[in-house]
Structure formats: C-alpha cells, structure tokens
C-alpha cells in the first residue's frame, strides 16, 4: 500500500515531452505558493539534450533537458513524479518504463486515446508495484499550495481566484479534467477551499479510480470532507457505496453522478467521455445517485445545488469545530508575460529600430509606399527600385536609366582586379558563393573601386567651394594624392574611352545642369597637358555625373545631396554593379571545376634572410 500523500511542497517532477506552456504554468503556480524550489526538475525530450529557459517568478531559470527517461531519473533520484505528455501511440511504453523506474512513484498520463487494454495493463502493473497512475486522458490534478500537475486549473488568475495557492480542507476527485477546474471554483466559493483535487480521466479504465483517491483522502488528516463528481457508466460509484456501507469512508462525502439526462435518450448516446455510457441499469446516473444517497453520502438533487450541499456540509463541520477555516494568504503577484501585457494594452515599450523605406506588414509588400505590384507594372526597373529604397523617391526615367547604366558599366572589369581575383581564389578554395562574393567585395576601398566615390566627393567639394581647376590641382598635389577619377592606362583625349563618351552624351542630353561634370572636364584639360592619359576616366565620370543627377533633377535639397554623397551611396552603387561581375567569376570557376589555387613560388620573392 502506498502512502496517502502523493505530493508535498518539495515534490519535483520529470516532464516527459517538451510542453513549454504547461511547464511555465507549473512554475507560476510554484511561485504563488511560495515554493522554494521549482516543481519541474527535468524535461525528457526523446533524443534531445540541452536546457530550457523558463521564468520562476521574476527571474529566469534553466531546466535541464534529458534525451531519455533513464538519464533524467539517474540525474534526479529525488524526483518521484513523472508527467507523461507522450502521444496515445507512445504513452504505453513510456509509462511502463516509468513504472519500472525505482525512483518514480506517481505517473500522470495525459494522452487521450490510449487503447483500453494498454491502460488496463498499466493499471495492473502499477498495482503490483504499489505505484500511482493518474490518467490516461486527464489534465492531472493539483495539491493546493504544494504541487500542480501540468495544465491543471488553467491560468494563474484562476488559481488565485479559486484559492488554490494555499491548502483548504476539501479533497476532490472526478473523472473530468474540465469539470474538476469548475469544481475547484465551486469549492472555493462554498468552503475554505481545496486540499487536493485529482481528475482520473474520462476513459473506461483509468489508472487509479475514484475510490482509491477517496480512500487516500480518508487517510489524510488535513482533509476534512470529500467532494466527488461521478459519471454515468461503469460500476465505480457502486464500490464507493459498498465502502460507505462498510463504514470505510467516515468523512462527509458530497457526491453527484452526472448523466441523469441519459434516460431521456433512446439508443444510448455516447457522451464526450469514452467511459460515459450506461451498459446496464445499475450503471445509470439515477441508480448510482440513489444508491449513494441511501448509503449515507450527501447527494444533491441536481448539479445546480452541488455547491449548496458542499457549503452546508462544510459549515456544519466548522460549527462542530472539525474544520478551522484555513487562513487567507495573499499570494505574490506573478509578473505578467510581456506578450499578454502588450495584447491587453497594459504596457508600452520604445522600439529599437526605425524603418522608413519599406513595409511588409501591409496587405501587400511596399517599397517606400509603392505597392510591389505597382513597382512591377510601372516598369521602373532596377533604377526605379534603387530610387525608392535608397533615395525614397520616385525618380524620373532618365535618372533611373543613369543608375542602371552605372550598374552596367561597373559590373565587371576583368579577372585581374582585386575584387574578381579574390573571389576567384575563394571560389577555387571550394567556398560557398556568399563567402566568395564577400572575399571579393571586401577588397573595395580606397585603392580599389573607391574612385567613383572619391571623384564625386572631391570634384563636388572643389566646384562648390569655387576653386579654380588650377587651385584644385595644387591643393591635391599639396596633399600628395592623385585626383580620384583621373587617369587611364592607355586612353587619352585623342583616343577617348567610349564608355565615357557615351555617358557624357547621355548626361548632356538629359540633365538640365552639369556643373560638376563641366568642372571635372576643365580639370581634365589641365591634367592632360601634363600627361596625355590623365583623362577623366569612367569611374570619375560616373561619380561627377551622379552629383549632377542629384542637382539637376530638382528633387533634392543641397543638404540632401551633401548627405547622399557623404553616406557613400556611390560606393554602394559600385558594390551593387560589381556584385554581378564577381558572381560571374565565381560561377565561372565553379563551372570549370577549377582546383585550389596556390600562388607559384616564382611569384613571391623570398627574402627571409633580410636583416
């Protein structure tokens, strides 16, 4: 025979199945009860190992996750309860394993739909071993102020409302989990509250029976009266009758057997619970209620006055001095969950980010307030999308064309330049395409690919400051820096770069004003006098024309233009264009299955002897 008490304020449980909500609800209950240690010792999530983070009051704690029951039980030998959330398919094997685990004495089986034979085998083995099974098909149970099984009694508000955070005097047992919660409420409103409540589950063969729990309550000193909710079907209540008659249940017992309506239906309605069907006259609710009443139980006339009967019975015990009403305890408040508080509009919080360019929270994705469908329909192209996402403007067609031209012109410059070279080496080292791209892009800076940005910055500054081209050249010379965007390997004024010529032609035709380009060309006149190939190159041309685009389209203030240039958007334009080319080189290498590249020795001067 097992001990009548299943749970204490120090009871801890193994949770079989990764049920995060149920775990948090148990811990919240622990907190309002003032438990010192969390009631969840360990989680078994088959095949998984690690930690689960949960709240214990205001603080966060870590609960270990074990890959199997054996590991969990070995680690927590003092934990004697298991709450089994395994499915109806696997409940049997995990429950049997738990039964055979020495340290585990009480197992709650949550699953609905466990085969009856399996449930009976579980019950029989538990009986042999003197262990307790609650369920299957149950929400569990609760010992007020001590220990709560899984989702029993619902939200913390309800727990406090039903005075479940401290023990009262009434022991309760029923089949139904939903109704047990209702009954805790009824008990709280009509007495000093629940001592312990168990829902044995609605199946035909629950692991433990109403009677077993009644007899436990009979043996627990603190339980002063017992409340039970029975159900049509089965003969369980008749065993209670026998025990009442034999005087084995001495504490006042308030009981109601539900299903009195069944006599009105023909054909035997199957109610919501599998076990709730009368197979013979003695299993009807009326017969059972009558037998219980005759055996001395307090039986109401209908469920409607179940609470009144509890109240009367309770008050009589108080008058007799059997019950000293439990003192009210004000529980600590469990901090509200953030999501819940937000939902209820109880808190606000400053955001960490601002976003002004796009919106994915609307019916349709928007780029700067333009629905994506309109982006496509208007055929604004990549240039238009850059306009929306970079400048937050709908750019005129010629501006979009210019941006696209810049992207096209910067897309590639052969395999030898740093960006492409690096990407090729990375690609041949077998790296993924993103790593290859990154290794190429990471070379872009002051010496490689930075000329567009540099040209725009310098020519813009000089032109706006009103420096003459000669003054500007002197200034750059004094700094000892070459003028960005000036100079080409082979091209000259007489042998011009066709890319530059086409660009200039486009700009002259479409832009209203071209002050920066004009200025750069004036500088070019001077530099080419020094050396024929010091022409405005394609990078320089893109840079200065970009400045003129901003100035000529009339959509940007001077301040905005300054910001755009200072933000480095021209660098971005180069990166965007060059990404196309770099990917080209990466795919090229992969397509050709090129092996790892190693710099040949004769490319390197070994001078390690150097002192």
């Amino acid at each position, binding site marked *: 025979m097992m001990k009548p008490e299943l749970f204490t304020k120090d009871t801890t449980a193994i949770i079989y199945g990764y049920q995060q909500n149920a775990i948090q609800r148990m811990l919240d209950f622990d907190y309002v009860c003032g438990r010192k240690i969390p009631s969840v010792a360990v989680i078994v999530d088959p095949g998984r190992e690690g930690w689960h983070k949960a709240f214990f009051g205001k603080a966060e704690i870590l609960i270990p996750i074990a890959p199997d029951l054996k590991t969990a039980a070995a680690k927590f030998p003092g934990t004697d309860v298991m709450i089994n959330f395994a499915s109806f398919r696997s409940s049997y094997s995990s429950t049997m394993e738990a039964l055979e685990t020495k340290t585990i004495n009480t197992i709650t089986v949550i699953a*609905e739909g466990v085969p009856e034979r399996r449930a009976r085998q579980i019950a*029989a083995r538990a009986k042999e071993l003197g262990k307790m099974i609650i369920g299957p098909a149950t929400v569990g149970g609760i010992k007020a102020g001590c220990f709560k099984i899984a989702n029993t009694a619902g*939200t913390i508000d*309800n727990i406090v409302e039903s005075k479940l955070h401290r023990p009262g005097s009434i022991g309760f047992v029923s089949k139904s*989990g*939903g109704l047990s919660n*209702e009954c805790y409420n009824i008990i709280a409103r009509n007495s000093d509250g629940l001592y312990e409540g168990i829902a044995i589950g*609605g199946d035909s063969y629950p692991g433990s029976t109403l009677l077993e729990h009644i007899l436990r309550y009979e043996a627990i000193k603190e339980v002063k009266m017992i409340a039970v909710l029975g159900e049509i079907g089965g003969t369980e209540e008749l065993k209670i009758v026998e025990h009442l008659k034999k005087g084995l249940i001495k504490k006042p017992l308030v009981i109601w057997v539900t299903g009195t309506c069944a006599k009105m239906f023909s054909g035997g309605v199957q*109610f919501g619970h599998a076990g709730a069907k009368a197979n013979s006259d003695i299993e009807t609710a009326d017969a059972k209620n009558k037998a219980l009443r005759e055996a001395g139980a307090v039986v109401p006339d209908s469920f*409607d006055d179940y609470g009144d009967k509890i109240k009367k019975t309770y008050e009589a015990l108080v008058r007799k001095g059997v019950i000293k009403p439990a003192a009210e305890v004000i529980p600590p408040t469990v901090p509200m969950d953030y999501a819940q508080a937000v939902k209820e509009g109880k808190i606000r919080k400053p955001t960490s980010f601002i976003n002004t360019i796009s919106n994915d929270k609307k019916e349709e994705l928007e780029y700067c307030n333009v629905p994506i469908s309109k982006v496509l329909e208007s055929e604004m192209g990549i240039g238009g999308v850059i306009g929306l996402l970079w400048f937050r403007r709908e750019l005129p067609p010629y501006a979009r064309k210019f941006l696209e031209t810049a992207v096209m012109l910067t897309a590639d410059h052969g395999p030898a330049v740093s960006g492409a070279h690096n990407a090729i080496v990375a690609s041949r080292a077998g790296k993924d395409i993103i790593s290859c791209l990154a290794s190429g892009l990471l070379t872009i800076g002051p010496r490689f690919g930075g000329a567009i940005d540099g040209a725009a910055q310098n020519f813009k500054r000089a032109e706006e400051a009103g420096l003459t081209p000669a003054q500007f050249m002197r200034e750059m010379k004094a700094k000892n820096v070459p003028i960005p965007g000036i100079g080409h390997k082979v091209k000259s004024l007489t042998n011009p770069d066709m890319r530059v010529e086409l660009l200039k032609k486009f700009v002259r035709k479409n832009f209203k004003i071209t002050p920066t380009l004009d200025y750069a060309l004036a500088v070019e006149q001077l530099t080419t006098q020094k050396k024929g190939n010091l022409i405005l190159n394609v990078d320089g041309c893109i840079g200065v024309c970009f400045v003129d685009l901003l100035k000529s389209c009339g959509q940007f203030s001077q301040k905005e233009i300054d910001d755009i240039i200072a933000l480095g958007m021209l660098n971005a334009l180069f990166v965007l264009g060059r990404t196309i080319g770099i990917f080209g080189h990466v795919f090229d290498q992969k397509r050709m299955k090129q092996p790892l590249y190693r710099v040949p020795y004769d490319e390197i001067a070994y001078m390690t002897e150097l002192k």
Partner: protein
Amino acid sequence: MAQKGIREYDGKRVLFDWLAKDFPKLKERAKKLALITPETKEKEALSANPWLKTTKLVVKPDQLFGKRGKHGLVLLNADWKTAWKWIAERMNKTVTVGKTTGELTHFLIEPFTPHAEDEEYYVAIRSERDCDVVYFSPKGGIYVEENWDKVIETRIPILGSAADAQFKLPDIKRREEVVRFLRSLHGLYAEGGFAYLEINPFSFSPDGDIVPLDLVAKLDDTAMFETTKLWGDMEFPPAFGTALTKEEAFVKHLDEQSGASLKLTILNPKGRVWTMVAGGGASVIYADTVCDLGYSKELANYGEYSGDPSERLTYEYAKTVLDLMTRTPDSRGKVLIIGGGIANFTDVAKTFGGIIKALAEFKDKLVKNKVSIYVRRGGPNYKEGLARMRKLGDTLGLPIQVYGPETHMTRIVSMALEKK
C-alpha cells in the same frame, strides 16, 4: 473514441483470419463471407463470391442487433436464388426489433453448415479492469440465458495469458478442442483490440471442424493504430435505428479530422432548447440540468466541443447547430445555451471567435426565431471572450446574457428556462 460495435461480417472476417493459424481448415471460411448493401448488384456479388452459387447459404441482417431468429430474420439452408429474393424483399424495409425501429440495409451471407444440435456451445469474453473474463456454457444457443448457472467463468489476468489459464470445463465432447478454441479466441481478443466478443453458438461440423455461428463484437477504436493489420478496412456503423443525420455526420467528420473533440446528437429537431457546450463533462451536466428542470422534451440536441479546437472548427460546428435550430420558428421563441466550465487550457476568446462569427452570420434567422442566448464560461482569455460576446449582443440586436466563473456553471440553464 470508445467501445464500438462492429458488423458480424467484419467480426467474422477478422475471426476466421485469426483462427486459421490454429485451425487451418478455417482458412477457407475467411473467404466465404459476403456483405450485401443496397448498392450491391447481383452480378458483382456473384463474381466476387463465386461460392454463393455452389453452396447452401445462411442469410441474416447485419446491423448490430440480436434476436434475429426470434424476429424471423434468419434464412437457413437456402440456394442463391432464394437468398437473393429473400434479401430483395427486405432491403430498405423498416422493421421493429424490441423497442427499436430501423431500416434494413446490410445482410450477411455465409455458407450453411449443418451441425449437431446437441453440441451448441456458448462463449463470450468481456473486459474487467484487471482481467478478461471468458464465459463458457455447454448449453449455448437460445438456451444460454435460462441455463446461466451452467456458465463457467475463466479469469485471465490482464498481465497474464490464456496459455497459463486453467479452463475448468465440464466433461463435454471434444473438450480439448474446445479449450484450444477458447485459448485462440482469447488471443484474438487481447491482440485485436476487442472490448467484447460473443459467439453463440459455436458447434462442430459433421467432419468435426469447429464452426462459429453467430458472432457479436465490440472493438476499442483507440486500438486502431496497433491493430490496423488485423482489422483491415474496419467500419463502425451507428447503432440500429440511429442512422446519423446529415448534420451529425458532418460533425463526426469534423471530429475525425482534428485532434479536438466535436460531438453532436440531435434529440428533437423541433425542441426549443439548444446547447453548444464546451467540455465532455460539462456538456452532460448541462443536458442533465435541462432535464432535471423538466424540459427534457424541449431539449433539441446533445453536443460538445473540447480539446482546444481551432476557430475554424468551432465556426463550422456553431454554423451547423444554428442552421438546425433556425429551420422552423416557434412562436414561443427558443433558447441557445453557450455553456462551459472553467477551461484548463482551451483559449476561450479563440473558440468563441468561431461561434461569434457564426452567430453574426445567422443574425436575421436568429431574430426571426426569437432566440435568447445565454453564455457562461471561464478559462484562459475568458474575459476577452465574454467581452466579445457582450459586444456581439449590442450589434446583433439579440438578447445575450453573458456570465463568467462568478456565476454557477448551470445557473444559466435555470435563468433561460424559468424566464420562459
């Protein structure tokens, strides 16, 4: 999910397949079973079961009711022509068996096997909590009840097996063979997810082969995942005389396609008290209370939804109930009870969402039917759920009374009925 009766056809199909392991001659019998439905064509029946033409036959209705012999519903030792005509005369005809009236739709045909009248034995297996009980009587057939004192009980512990059980049978003919049969039968009972199995009678053919005659069985349908192979294509027909209505069948379908539970039984389509209650336990209590207050004749339905059904499921469910309750207006008006206890984990606001949507859709019909609505519920997010119900009352122009856990669960029943 519960114990469900099955057709004798399915029961025998499974039985013969199983017994063939221990009684090889029964292998043939497994193939000689035919189920005739209103859709069956004579030609198809014959091509699927050529033995029908060559064997003498037994025919009987197969619709989960007994005492067929007493009601003249068994045809013995007939040829195919007679059998087919006999079925045709009875198919889709209404008969009354005991207190139940229903339509005949399914007939089982088997080969007719002559057996010794003095060798009619009875066997039944039933589950108790900690054992299976095998009942055996040497006086089987229609005499078993009046000879109940001759019945021998053998208890097989749930953790034990029939191999270890001592069958203390009286000194009957072919005793060893009978014991072997009982052992095999119990094997099927245990392995096959049975909740009840009765063969009354079984006997022996002139060749000395065991012959199970009438069979009644119930299966535990939750065992399906373990017994798929044994059961094959198993059907769970409704009890005789209780064919599901279209709406009940629809809710059954919703129930089967989800992990949540949804149930609906129409008791009286003209009734004025309709319920839509959350929870298997609570729903019974609401129905009880309606009856306890003397309104059982007015109670239109029994039903429940539970196990955290999705908003879509509760919407479909509510629509079905509302449609049924607004078909024929009654000048005295109607009552809809949307009840429930305090949920443990079902999100009340979410499940109410589906009900509210359905109520809004049925606004005009509800007004026309003078429906008063009473709501009582608690549990996670109940405040939001109840607030949404109250708000709906304002917009619907219908009287909706809304209560939470502070009001006794069934009080709305008396409020609703005593107001009438």
